[in-house]
C-alpha cells in the first residue's frame, strides 16, 4: 500500500468510527402499567358503551403515539421505547415502580382506588407517573403528588364544563340525581361546587339505587325521582352507568339529561371534526377496528406525546430536565383540540378543552367563548392557582 492509500484507509475508518459515534442513539424507556383484572374492562360493561367509561384498554393509543414519535426520535438521536407490564394486583405494581432502576417514566391505567393506593406508596424519588384514567379531585388537591401528572381531566374540570354550558343556555334550575358509589358522590359534589361558582340552582337532590324492589320505588323509579320541583335539566351522577342508561325518556317531564348520560363532558370524541382530530381518530381506528378512540385513549396518547415534547424542548433525557420541561408553561403541546396545551404548575394537571358530547355528536367545546380567565381561559375549567388545595 502506498502512503496515500494508507492515508485514505485511515481517513475512511476515522469517518466510519465518528459516524457510528454520531448515529448511536440514546434510549428513553417509557413503561405502560396496568392491572390484569381491572373491573372497568368487564366485557358486559364495555358492551353497553356507557358514556364516560373506558371502552377498551388504552395501550393501543400509546402505541400510536410511539409510532408518531419515531421520526422526532431519529432527529433528536433518541429512541423512545415503549414497554408494557401487567400486574395481578396493585401491590406488585407499586413495588415494580419502587424497585426499578431501569425506568423512571410510567403511564399508568388505574382506577381512582388503585391510583390512590399507588399515590400513598411511591417511595422512589425520581419518577414521573402519568395518570390516564382517574378523575379523582383529591389527587389534584389535598392528596396531590408532584410525581404524578394527570392527562385525564379532574371531575372539577368536567363539571365546570357542564356548568358553563348551562349558563350559556340559561338552564339554571337543576335536579341532581346521584348513585351510592364513592365516585358518584364525588362527581355530584363536584357539580354542586361548579353550580355554586356559576349561580346554577340545584332545586332538588335525590339518591337513586339500582333495584326493582317496589318497596324502594322512591329511589328506583325514575319518574318518581325526577318530577317534583320546576327544573330545566336533570344532572345525573352515575359513574357505574348501569342505572343512567335508562334515565333518558323515563323522566316525568320532558327534560334533557346531563352528567354521566345524555350530554357528557368528554376528554375526547370520535366525532370531533376540527384541529386534526379526524386524522388522529382515523389512525386509531386503523389500529383498533372494534372501537373508537375514547377519552382514556386520548389521555394515554397525549402522555407519551408530552414526554416526547418535553425531550424535544429540553434536548435531554435526564429526569430533572424532563420534569422542568413538562411543567414549563411554554411546553406548547399539540393536543389536537385547538390551541397549545401545558400542565398546570400547581398540580400537574394537563389544561385542556373539554368536549360536551352526546353519544354521537359534539355539541360544544369548552371553555365556552366568554368565560374568561386572567391567565389562560382553559383555567376556567377546574381549580385554578387561587383555588387549589394542592401543595407540592
Amino acid at each position, binding site marked *: 500500500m502506498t502512503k496515500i492509500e494508507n492515508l485514505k484507509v485511515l481517513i475512511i475508518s476515522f469517518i466510519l468510527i465518528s459516524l457510528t459515534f454520531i448515529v448511536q442513539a440514546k434510549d428513553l424507556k417509557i413503561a405502560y402499567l396496568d392491572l390484569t383484572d381491572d373491573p372497568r374492562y368487564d366485557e358486559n360493561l364495555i358492551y353497553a358503551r356507557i358514556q364516560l367509561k373506558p371502552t377498551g384498554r388504552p395501550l393501543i393509543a400509546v402505541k400510536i403515539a410511539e*409510532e*408518531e*414519535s419515531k*421520526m*422526532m426520535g*431519529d*432527529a*433528536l438521536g433518541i429512541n423512545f421505547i415503549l414497554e408494557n407490564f401487567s400486574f395481578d394486583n396493585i401491590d406488585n405494581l407499586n413495588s415494580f415502580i419502587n424497585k426499578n432502576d431501569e425506568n423512571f417514566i410510567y403511564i399508568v391505567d388505574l382506577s381512582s382506588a388503585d391510583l390512590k393506593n399507588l399515590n400513598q406508596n411511591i417511595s422512589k424519588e425520581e419518577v414521573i407517573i402519568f395518570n390516564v384514567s382517574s378523575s379523582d379531585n383529591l389527587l389534584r388537591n389535598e392528596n396531590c403528588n408532584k410525581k404524578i401528572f394527570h392527562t385525564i381531566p379532574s371531575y372539577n374540570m368536567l363539571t365546570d364544563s357542564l356548568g358553563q354550558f348551562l349558563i350559556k343556555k340559561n338552564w339554571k334550575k337543576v335536579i341532581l340525581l346521584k348513585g351510592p358509589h364513592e365516585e358518584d358522590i364525588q362527581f355530584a359534589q363536584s357539580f354542586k361546587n361548579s353550580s355554586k361558582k356559576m349561580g346554577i340552582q340545584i332545586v332538588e337532590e335525590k339518591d337513586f339505587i339500582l333495584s326493582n324492589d317496589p318497596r324502594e320505588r322512591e329511589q328506583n323509579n325514575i319518574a318518581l325521582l325526577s318530577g317534583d320541583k320546576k327544573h330545566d335539566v336533570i344532572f345525573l351522577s352515575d359513574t357505574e352507568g348501569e342505572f343512567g342508561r335508562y334515565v333518558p325518556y323515563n323522566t316525568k317531564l320532558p327534560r334533557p339529561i346531563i352528567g354521566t348520560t345524555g350530554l357528557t363532558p368528554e376528554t375526547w370524541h370520535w366525532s370531533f371534526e376540527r384541529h*386534526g382530530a379526524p*386524522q388522529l381518530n*382515523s*389512525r386509531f381506528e386503523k389500529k383498533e377496528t372494534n372501537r373508537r378512540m375514547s377519552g382514556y385513549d386520548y389521555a394515554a396518547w397525549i402522555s407519551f406525546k408530552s414526554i416526547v*415534547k418535553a425531550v*424535544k424542548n429540553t434536548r435531554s433525557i435526564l429526569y430533572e430536565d424532563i420534569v422542568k420541561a413538562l411543567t414549563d408553561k411554554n411546553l*406548547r*403541546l*399539540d393536543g389536537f383540540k*385547538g*390551541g*397549545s396545551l401545558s400542565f398546570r404548575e400547581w398540580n400537574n394537571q394537563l389544561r385542556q378543552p373539554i368536549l360536551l358530547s352526546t353519544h354521537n355528536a359534539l355539541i360544544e367545546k369548552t371553555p365556552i367563548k366568554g368565560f374568561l380567565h386572567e391567565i*389562560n381561559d382553559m383555567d376556567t375549567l377546574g381549580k385554578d392557582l387561587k383555588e387549589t388545595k394542592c401543595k407540592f
Partner: protein
Amino acid sequence: MINLILNKVTAVVFIFFIILTSAVSSKDTGLIFVSNEKSHEVMVIDPDTYEIIKSIKTSKRPRDLEWNSDKSKLYVACGDDDIIDVIDIETLEIVDQIDTGPSPEVFVFSPDEKLIYVSNEEDSSLGILDLEEGIIMNSVPTGAEPEGVITSKDGKTIYVTSEVADMVHVINADELFVEKNIIVGTRPRRFAFTPDEKELWVTAELSGEVWIIDTSNHEIIDVMKFLPPGFREEDVTPVGLTMNKEGTLTYLSLGRANHIAVVDTIKREVLDYILVGSRAWEVALTRDEEKLFVANGLSDDVTIINLKNNTVIKSIPVGRVPHTVVIDD
C-alpha cells in the same frame, strides 16, 4: 419591393399582435378562486364587483389550489375523494381528474410540470404523481400528517412539513430520500421562499411562530413571534403566508388571532396587524401587489385588503369553510 417587405412585416407584426392580445385576453381574467372545504365547491369571484359569478362543484373536500404555468388550468386537491380535480379556466368547468393517494391536502408541481408532489395526510407520505401517466409513481415516507410542500426553483429539493412530527423534511428530488430533518416549532404548516431562495420561511401554527431556515445549510437562522393587540399568545396560530416579488414584505395569516401580520422580510419585524375574519388561513397577493385576499375558515368569508393603506375593503361570504384563495392574474 421595399413596400412589399414592409407590408409583409406589418402583416406578421399584426398577426403576432393578434395572437398576443388573444393570448392575453384568455388569461389575466383577474378572477379570484376560493376552495370551500365543507361545501365541496370552488367559488369564482369577479375582481371588480367582488360578486360570486360561479360555484364550480368539485369532488369532496377541496383544499389546496395550484395553477399550471400558463394558468390555463387550476388544480384542486380534494381530500375526501382522494382526487385532484382540474378546472379549465376558459370554460370554468372540471375537465379532468387525477387519482392521488389517500387524503391529498397540499401539493406543488415540479418546475418542469411533469410531476405533482402531494402531501398525503392519511398515510403520512409525500406522493410523487406522474402527470402523463396519471398515477402515483413513488412516495417518500414522512412524519405523520404531512402538510406544506414547496420545491426549489431548480427542482432539486422538495421541502415538506409534518404537522405531528414538528419538523421539515428536506427531500432530494432526484433520488427521493430524506436528506435532513429540521426540527421546528409545534404543528408546522406552510412555506414561503424569499425571492433569492436563500431563506425558507415556515409557519408553526401551535407555537405561534415563523421559523426561518437558511437553505444553504438547512440550519435555523431565526424564529419570529407575533402578538396583535388584545390577543394572547395561544390565540396566535399562523398558517398561510406570501411574500412580495421584491422580497421586502411578507403577509402572514394569524389564524384564530383573526389578523394578518405585515412583516418587513429583511429586518424580520412586524410592521402592521390588519383585522380580518375568523381563523384566517390562506392568503393571496394580486400581481400588482395592491390587494391581498384572505380566506377565513371560521367566518366562511374572504377578506379583501387594500395594501396601499392596509385597510379592509370588504369581506365577502363564500360558503362553508374556505380553505385556499388564488387569483388569475
